[in-house]
C-alpha cells in the first residue's frame, strides 16, 4: 500500500486491536473502557459519542475542546485540551461545550494603546488577586497571571508577548476568582500592539504605492498573455534568492 491507511481508521482514535492495553475512564460520569494511549477526544469517539460541540481543529489551535478532569486519589481539578491530552486510568472527565465570557465592543481605531484600554474595557483585570490559578489552569502553559499583571501596568507589549500562543479555550476565565476574562484581554492587547506599537515597515508602504501607481500593470499583461510553453520557460529559468 503506497497510500494512507484504511478508510475506517481515524486520526485521533487509536487502532483497534484486541491486544491493546485498556483503561477505564468516566466520561461525564459514565464508565467506558478505552485504549490506554488514546487522547481524550479519541476516547470519547471510541466510546461511541458523535461530538458536535467540543471538537474544532483537533490539533491544539482552536480551543474548542477544553476539558476538565480529576484523577483517582487526587483532590486537584485538572484542565486540558481533549485533542492533545492522553487518558489515564480512572480519569473522570467532562468537556465544556461553551463558556460565558464578556467581550467588550470597541472601535479599534479609537482605542489608545495604553492602560486606559484595560481600564475602560476590562476593568476587572484590576481585581486580580495574584492567586496564579489562571496560569495553573492554562493548557498551553502560558504565564497568564503575568500578562494580567502586565495589563495592570499598561505594558501592552508584554501582554502581547505572553498571550501570543493563547488559544482562547477559556479555562483561565472559568477558574478565575476575580472573574477576569483573560483571553479577551490578551486579544485586545495583541490588536493594539499590532496596529499601533509594532514598528512600521516603510518598504511595505512603498510597495503598496507602486501597485496603486500601476507599476506592475504592464508586467502582468505580458505574463497573462503568455501560453503555457512560454510561461514554463520563464518559470524554470527564474533565479532563486538564498
Amino acid at each position, binding site marked *: 500500500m*503506497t*497510500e*494512507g*491507511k*484504511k478508510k*475506517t481508521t481515524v*486520526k*485521533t*482514535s*487509536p*487502532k483497534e486491536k484486541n491486544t491493546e492495553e485498556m483503561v477505564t475512564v468516566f466520561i461525564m460520569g459514565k464508565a467506558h473502557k478505552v485504549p490506554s494511549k488514546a*487522547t481524550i477526544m479519541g476516547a470519547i469517539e*471510541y*466510546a*461511541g459519542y*458523535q461530538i*458536535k460541540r467540543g*471538537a*474544532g*481543529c*483537533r*490539533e*491544539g*489551535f*482552536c480551543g474548542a475542546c477544553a476539558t476538565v478532569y480529576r484523577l483517582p486519589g487526587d483532590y486537584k481539578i485538572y484542565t486540558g485540551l481533549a485533542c*492533545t491530552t492522553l487518558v489515564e486510568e480512572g480519569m473522570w472527565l467532562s468537556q465544556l461545550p*461553551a463558556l460565558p465570557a464578556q*467581550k467588550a*465592543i*470597541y*472601535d*479599534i481605531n479609537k482605542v489608545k494603546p495604553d492602560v486606559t484600554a484595560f481600564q475602560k474595557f476590562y476593568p476587572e483585570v484590576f481585581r486580580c488577586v495574584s492567586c496564579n490559578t489562571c496560569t495553573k489552569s492554562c493548557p498551553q502553559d502560558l504565564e497568564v497571571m503575568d500578562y494580567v499583571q502586565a495589563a495592570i501596568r499598561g505594558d501592552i507589549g508584554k501582554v502581547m508577548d505572553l498571550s501570543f*500562543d493563547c*488559544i482562547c479555550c477559556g479555562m483561565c476565565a472559568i477558574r478565575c476568582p476575580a472573574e477576569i476574562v483573560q483571553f479577551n484581554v490578551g*486579544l*485586545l492587547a*495583541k*490588536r493594539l*500592539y*499590532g*496596529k499601533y506599537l509594532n514598528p*512600521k*515597515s516603510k*518598504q*511595505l508602504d512603498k*510597495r503598496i504605492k507602486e*501597485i496603486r501607481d500601476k507599476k*506592475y500593470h504592464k*508586467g*502582468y499583461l505580458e*505574463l*497573462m498573455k503568455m501560453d*503555457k510553453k512560454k*510561461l*514554463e520557460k520563464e518559470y*524554470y529559468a*527564474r533565479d*532563486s*534568492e*538564498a
Partner: protein
Amino acid sequence: MYPEYMHPSLKKVEQTRNKRFELAKSGKPVFPPMSAEERDTVLHKFHPDYKSDARRKVHIGPNKGEVITSEVADILESHSRIDPSLFDLSSPDYETDILIIGGGGAGCAAAITAMQEGSKSVVSTKLRLGDANSMMSQGGMQAATSVTDTPTRHYLDAIGGGHFDNKPELVRALTEDGPEIVKWLENLGVVWDKDDEGNLQLLHGGGTSRRRMHSCRDYTGAVILRTLMDEVRNHPDKITYLEFMPTVELILDSKGRVAGGILYNMETEEYFTVKANATIIATGGYGRLHIRGFDTTNHYGATADGLIMAYRAGARLLYMDSVQYHPTGAVFPEQIAGFLITEKIRGAGGQPVNKEGELFVFPREPRDVESSAIIRECYEKMMGIKTPSGRLGVWLDSPLIEMLQEEGYINKQFPAMHRQFIHYGIDITKEPMLVYPSLHYQNGGIEINDKCETNLPGLFVAGEASGGVHGRNRLMGNSVLDYNVFGRRAGLNAAAYIKSVKLGPLSLQHVSDYEKALKDAKIKTNRIAPVLLPSYTPENVRKRQLTSHYEGTLR
C-alpha cells in the same frame, strides 16, 4: 519518545547533520531541484491522484461527464437533507443583505468588508465562529513586499507551482492584492513578525523564488483569524453570526438568482430560512472526507458542504480532479498522525532525510512534487522508517534549524510545533520529527472570476471552496492570502451587486430537479450531503445503534 529500534536511524541523522549544515550554509541548493520532466515522472508514478481508482466520472450536474476525485463525485451524487415540499418560503425566518455561509477566514473577511460598505450580513457557520482551517495555518502568508521581490514574480511562482492551470485573472488578483492585505491586517491589529526597525521577517516556502512568507510565529492563522473574529464581534448591529447552524441548501428566486439558504440547527434539528439579496459561500475544503483513506491536517468540519449545495443549484466546479497532500504530516506518535508540520520548518532550513540520514529531495519543491518524492522514498526506495503500527515516514531534521539560525530559534518561531511534540517526550530542538504526506487542501472548487462571481447570479465564493486560484497545486502561504484577498473581494462585490437586486418569489425547485436527475441517471444511493460532520464511531458501537425509527429529536 522514539522507540528503541529507531535509535540507530536517529544516530545516522545526527552523524550526517554537520555535513548537511555545511551544505546549507554554502547558499547553494542542498539537493538539485527537479526539472519539468523529473517533476512529471515522480507525480505520475507516486502522487495519489494518479492511482487508477482515484478519479471517476460524475454523472449529473453542471460538470456531468467530467472525471473528478472519486470521493467528491460520491458526495455530488447524493440526496439532499431536505424535502423541498415541506418548506414555506413566503415568510423567511431571517432577511438580510448578504448570507455568508462559513465562519472561517474568508467568511469573516467578507463580513467585515461588506459591513464597511454598509451591508448587513448573516453568517451561518456549522461549528463555532472561527472553527476553520484558517485557524490552523502555521507557517505564514505570501505577499511580495520585499525590495528583491515583485508581485509579478509572485505570479510566476504561483502559476508554475499550479502547473500553469491557474486562472490568470485570479493569480493576478491574489498577488497584486498581497501587500495591501499585509497592511489591511496590520491595521486591524495583526502582529506580524518584524525586526526592531519594522522590517517584515520573510522566509521561503516550497516553490518560492523569493522570500515572501509573512508570519506570526507559528500561530499565523490563529492570530489573523482571531483578529478578524474580534472585529466581526465588534459589529453586532451589522453582522449576525449563527453558530452550529450550517446552511444545507441554497434558495433561488424565480429568475434563477441565488437568494439565501436553508439553515439547519444541529442541536434542535430545526430548519430556518434566510432570504438574502446575495450569498457568499466560504465553506472551505474537504479534508474530513479522508480521500483515499489519508489522515488529514484539516479541522473537524471540512466536509465540502458548499460544493454540493452550489452544484445542486447549478454552479460549475473547476479542477475537482486534484487533491493536495501536505508533504509533512506527523506520522509518529500515532495520536497526532496527520497533524500539520508547517512548511516553515523547511523554510527555516529543516531538511527531509531518509533512514540513512541522507537528503533525497530538494526541501522546497512545490507540495505535490515534495509529497510524491517522500512517498517514493518510502515505498519504492524502501528508505523510510517504520512506525510501531506499520506506517512509513521520513525524518524532518529540525535540530538543524537551531544550527542554521540561532539557539532558541525553534522555541521562539515554532512554539506550537514544539508544544505538540513535547507532550509525547520528543524535543524537536534535539530530535527530528517523523513525517509522511497528509491530506491537506482542496485545490479546485466552485469556479469564480476575480470578483468572486460564479456562473450563478447572486452567488459569490471565496477561499478554499473556490476553484481556479491555485490551478492544480497550491503553494504554501497562498491560502492564507487567498482567503483574505477573495474574502474581501467577495464582500465588496456582493455589497455592490445587491444595490440593484429586487428578488422575485423564492424557490427550492432546483433541489427537486436534482433529485429527479439522480433518478434519471439511475443512481441508487443512500448517501446524503452536505455531510456536515465525519463519523468516527467504531464498528462495534454502530452495530448496536439499532433504533428502528425517529421520534422527534430522539433516535
